[in-house]
């Protein structure tokens, strides 16, 4: 398979197809975490439309050659959303779909948090929050130094933005004028102990990023058209990094999980799996 042509590596599905893929990924997330008996469905479901848009429309990558040096990178900084990443990787062809139900089992290549050592296509080991943006700045700078035209996409949680390192990295990305980097904040409003505004206020988030020197775009993180427009806009921004603040709903797509913080780090039981899958038909 040729690995030099950019466009041949990009899947670029149309919006209606992307919506179907997103539903498939959501079903995987429910089945995987249900089978595992643990895991993080809430923040995986909130990020599903973002991850779907990236993997099935934007990313130039080659699942048959995960280390292709010219590939675009998707870096999952909120490593607990591993289920949505695994679902996207499996649907892309990095590994067989049959592996998904091994999530979190002893010896599985699908670890509880994203692990670049054992899962093909995972770019960074993550789970201890706040590190992915810094890592992405490094990957983006390396691309510039190596005269590669790849883009780096990094997905952060909103709660993750409590971590001071996120802002160290934000400062550095603007200082080094890293414009081949697009960060996305999965702004679902909830963190483990409750609503962000009650646990640790993040607002005004838009102004925070702007004041750190970023180009800021706000979208409905479940509207694929808006996401596509935002990603396109980001590609044309030069001399500064772009952040897309994606307003999302934790647990999106499953009524009893939506905005329910209980499902941050709890898997659905057998009955809930059945109910959820019915809603995702």
């Amino acid at each position, binding site marked *: 398979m040729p690995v030099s042509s950019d466009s041949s590596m990009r899947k670029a599905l149309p919006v209606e197809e992307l919506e179907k893929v997103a539903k498939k990924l959501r079903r995987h997330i429910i089945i995987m975490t249900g089978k595992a008996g643990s895991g993080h469905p809430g923040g995986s479901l909130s990020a599903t439309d973002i991850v779907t848009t990236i993997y099935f429309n934007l990313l130039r990558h080659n699942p048959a050659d995960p280390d292709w040096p010219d590939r675009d990178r998707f870096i999952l900084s909120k490593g607990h959303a591993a289920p949505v990443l695994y679902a996207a990787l499996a649907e892309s062809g990095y590994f067989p779909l049959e592996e998904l139900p091994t999530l979190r089992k002893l010896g599985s290549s699908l670890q509880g948090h994203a692990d670049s050592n054992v899962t093909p296509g995972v770019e960074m*080991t*993550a789970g201890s929050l706040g590190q992915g943006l810094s890592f992405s700045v490094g990957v983006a700078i390396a691309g510039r130094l190596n005269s590669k035209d790849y883009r780096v996409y990094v997905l952060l949680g909103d709660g993750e933005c409590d971590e001071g390192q996120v802002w160290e990295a934000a400062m550095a990305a603007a200082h080094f004028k890293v414009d081949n980097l697009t960060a996305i904040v999965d702004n679902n409003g909830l963190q483990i102990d409750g609503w962000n505004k009650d646990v640790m206020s993040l607002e005004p988030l838009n102004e925070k990023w702007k004041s750190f020197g970023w180009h800021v775009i706000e979208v409905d993180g479940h509207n694929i058209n808006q996401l596509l427009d935002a990603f396109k806009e980001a590609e044309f921004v030069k001399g500064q990094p772009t952040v897309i603040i994606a307003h999302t709903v934790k647990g999106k797509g499953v009524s009893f999980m939506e905005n329910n913080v209980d499902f941050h780090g709890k898997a659905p039981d057998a009955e809930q799996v059945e109910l959820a899958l019915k809603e995702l038909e």
Partner: protein
Amino acid sequence: MAEEVAMREVYGKTLVELGRENPDIVVLDADLSASTMTKYFAKEFPERFFDCGIAEQNMVTIAAGLASAGKIPFASTFAVFVPGRCFDQVRVSIAHSELNVKLVVTHGGLSVGEDGATHQAIEDLSLITSLPGFTVIVPGDGIETAQAVRTAASVQGPFYIRLPRLKTPIIYTDDYKFEIGKAVELRPGKDVTVIAIGIMVAAALEAAENLYKEGIDCRVVNMPTIKPIDEAAIARAAEETGAIVTAEEHLEHGGLASAVAQVAAKNHPAPMEFVAVKDTYAESGTPAELLKKYGLTADDIEQAVKKVLKRKK
């Protein structure tokens, strides 16, 4: 008196040579380039030098990202800040994936001096050696420093190299060849072995010379690689001399003392004494005053040797 050279000065110059040889070498610092001596590299290769400001967590994680995309990043600051200030980043972003990041830190140990306890790294080796995958080196002089830095650049995987602030005597000749995981016998001896690292290597040689005059034949071994440690050299010391003293500018817990004792206990137990900082923080003072007060002089090594010999069977 042997010629004295600052290992960090050697590091800075070696980086420039490496930069000329390999375009993939990149250097990061956290606002201390004039002290870590990465300033030389910054001057010659500004496009490959990244001052990350006073943000060590960010610096080491950017280094991880650079390494994941094929670069060979050297990240430098004071030993007290890396790994202490960013231990989790070093653990998760570098060590877990065994990324090709070279952490070269300066101002290790008490000999930092007047800056006081907050700036005296005495637990860094304990932290960094606890991480699977890291190669940990504490060179004994400038010649060894240059070679260790070159080795780190050419060998895949994460490295931690710890250097002192002060100038130290040159111990080796130019034909010395550093090898990862290989101890170096600097002085033969049959009564006892002193295993030393960093600035304590010169002190150990001085102690051995004094002890020889008192009729004690002391072997001196430099153990530049703390991890992976030279188990064979420790076994030989235990077998052939029957007693071991370790000497380091670090807490007794978790550094050279622990590593050597662990290997000896497993393979060939022998009585041991440890010249190291006891379970305490130090304070401001001149380097010489601090080394004396906290028991890190040639005289302390001599006393430890005499003590361990009393227990030798």
